């Protein structure tokens, strides 16, 4: 077999090759996480074989709506973002920070679990979600953290997007539809045509090259590569939504007093679904618990939402008591102050917040309204 470094890329594998790639990950000691159909949605779950991928399934998306549909073909990655994102593996919804036991002189912390952090392989990461992982890295990957440990062991197989959904707008933010430049190990482009079901494979890292070297692949001819690249490029023109991304940071800073917040507050249920579905929302709270005897205490971290009234609680009351102030916090943080805090936007254009909002609030529409309101203000 050729050594990985000697293989000219991109390479071509067929559907069987995808199965081989899966097995190579398993053999390499990875726990493979990927999309699969469960409870009428495409969720992310540990997979036991490539056969569990959602072959032949697509999704219909709209503000406040998500529905599985049968595709005319057997595409494995012919679906846009689902209700979950990869953060539930890198930044779990609930995690024990430490435990302690009562002692004669007070308390003592138990030895930290020295379990080896999981070695995840994410199979099927869309470019928007690849960007989302990079954004969470800047927030959460502090030296010594569990996040950093999981992240350092992670293997990513990204899949370019050739079929954006109706709520997608990654192209507006430069987060897709291609994975170009995103930090990952392998990038697939799914191709279905008269020659069958194949995947063009690009290599993003040494590890990626090493893994590809263990899988039967063939050289991709130039015409096919051009066709694959074109399918990804033109996907940018088929986004269901668009966001005028110019100076969003300035727009948010100028819009604290906007009347639009009242309008959106009349629709927003402050349920926090958008923050749970968002692949970059990272906020957490902590819970302290004891057992009935009081001999054992634990501290747990769990996902929290800025839409929760308690989120801004300070002795005496909550700072953000109105729905308006909580939606404003979420949007101005996501698109504006995220830059100040972490050096980038917090939005990747995956559209999850639109599809999973029970009131169908559309971020792109709210931004358009805020922009129109500012323009009007400036004219006056």
């Amino acid at each position, binding site marked *: 077999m050729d050594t990985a470094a000697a293989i000219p890329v991109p390479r071509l594998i067929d559907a069987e090759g995808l199965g081989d790639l899966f097995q190579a990950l398993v053999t390499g000691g990875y726990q493979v996480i990927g999309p699969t159909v469960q409870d009428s949605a495409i969720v992310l779950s540990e997979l036991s074989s490539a056969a569990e991928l959602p072959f032949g399934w697509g999704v219909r998306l709209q503000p406040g709506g998500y529905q599985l549909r049968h595709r005319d073909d057997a595409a494995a990655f012919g679906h846009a973002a689902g209700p979950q994102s990869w953060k539930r593996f890198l930044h779990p919804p609930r995690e024990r920070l430490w435990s302690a036991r009562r002692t004669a002189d007070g308390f003592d912390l138990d030895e930290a679990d020295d379990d080896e952090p999981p070695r995840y392989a994410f199979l099927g990461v869309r470019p928007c979600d690849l960007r989302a992982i990079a954004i969470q890295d800047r927030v959460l990957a*502090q030296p010594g953290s569990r996040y950093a440990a999981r992240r350092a062991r992670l293997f990513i197989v990204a899949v370019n997007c050739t079929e954006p959904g109706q709520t997608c707008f990654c192209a507006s933010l430069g987060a897709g539809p291609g994975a170009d430049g995103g930090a990952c190990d392998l990038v697939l482009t799914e191709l279905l045509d008269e020659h069958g079901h194949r995947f063009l494979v690009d290599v993003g890292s040494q590890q990626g090259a090493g893994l590809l070297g263990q899988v039967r692949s063939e050289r991709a001819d130039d015409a096919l590569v051009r066709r694959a690249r074109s399918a990804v490029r033109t996907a940018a023109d088929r986004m269901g939504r668009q966001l005028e991304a110019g100076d969003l940071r300035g727009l948010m800073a100028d819009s604290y007093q906007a009347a639009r917040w009242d309008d959106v507050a009349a629709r927003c249920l402050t349920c926090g679904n958008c923050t749970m579905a968002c692949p970059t929302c990272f906020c957490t709270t*902590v819970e302290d618990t004891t057992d009935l005897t009081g001999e054992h205490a634990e501290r747990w971290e769990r996902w929290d939402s800025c839409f929760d009234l308690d989120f*801004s609680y*300070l002795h*005496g009351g909550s700072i*953000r008591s109105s729905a308006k102030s909580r939606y404003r916090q979420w949007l101005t943080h996501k698109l504006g102050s995220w830059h100040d*805090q972490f050096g980038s936007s917090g939005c990747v254009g995956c559209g999850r917040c639109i599809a999973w909002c029970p009131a169908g609030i559309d971020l792109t529409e709210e931004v358009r309204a805020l922009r129109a309101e500012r323009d009007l203000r400036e004219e006056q």
Partner: protein
Amino acid sequence: MTVTGEHVTAPASALGPMQPSRYVVAARQAETHDTVTLMLRPVGDPIEPPRPGQFTMLYAYGVGEIPVSISGFHRGQVLVQTIRAVGAVTRALCAAAPGAMIGVRGPFGTDWQVHRADGRDMLVVAGGIGLAPLRPVLLAALAERARYDRVVLLVGARSPGDLVFARELQTWRRRGADVRVTVDHGNADWHGQVGLVTRLIEGAVEDPAWTAAFVCGPEIMMRFSAEALVNCGIAAENIRVSLERNMRCGAALCGHCQLGPLLLCRDGPVVSYAEAAPLVAEKEL
């Protein structure tokens, strides 16, 4: 391994920033009917030495954890922390007797930058328990009194009984601070000034261009005090305030302490009034 950004590194130690260090209460001093000062001594590895204005997260076993500003650091290891009982955790901490064990994480956040007052007049304005995080500023200034021109402390409290560090105020006067105290409501034994602390400001500023001000108290008191200082001619950049929001982690990970662009556990709690003014003026930000 995946190609990773500069922030992604392998784990350094099992004990991360979320694990508390164990301290015991070496001494406990009741300040007012609801406020207590604890002297905390490390049992094992101590936290890093704090700078004036920083805070710690204090943990009461089985109850929970809250942010508390540091009001002193003695002999290279003893933490002085002043706590007002307003909730379950603060009540448990205030009730901690000598010998009780407390968990401590930190120190976190920005500091007062006491050096900003070098060679100038130092003006410290405190409202209520807001004097606690300012105490290290006073102690630092009085330890090197010659570095400053005037050292003025303005203290406001709701009533004479709500004054914290009341006995120390005399000591600070003796050591060269001009200490002026006012209360919102006096009582039969009170012969001092009555009124808001903001009313002391005008008479305390002599050379606004050469004054560095440090302000802490309830947010509304800080706003009015800072505005009064600005009206006296002190530049907003030379006024520092200590802000407070809900805090869960102290390490810029949990998102709770956001105030517009700031994560107050990292970018605060102490910020210049030039930065704070537009943020605290915005309702429900």
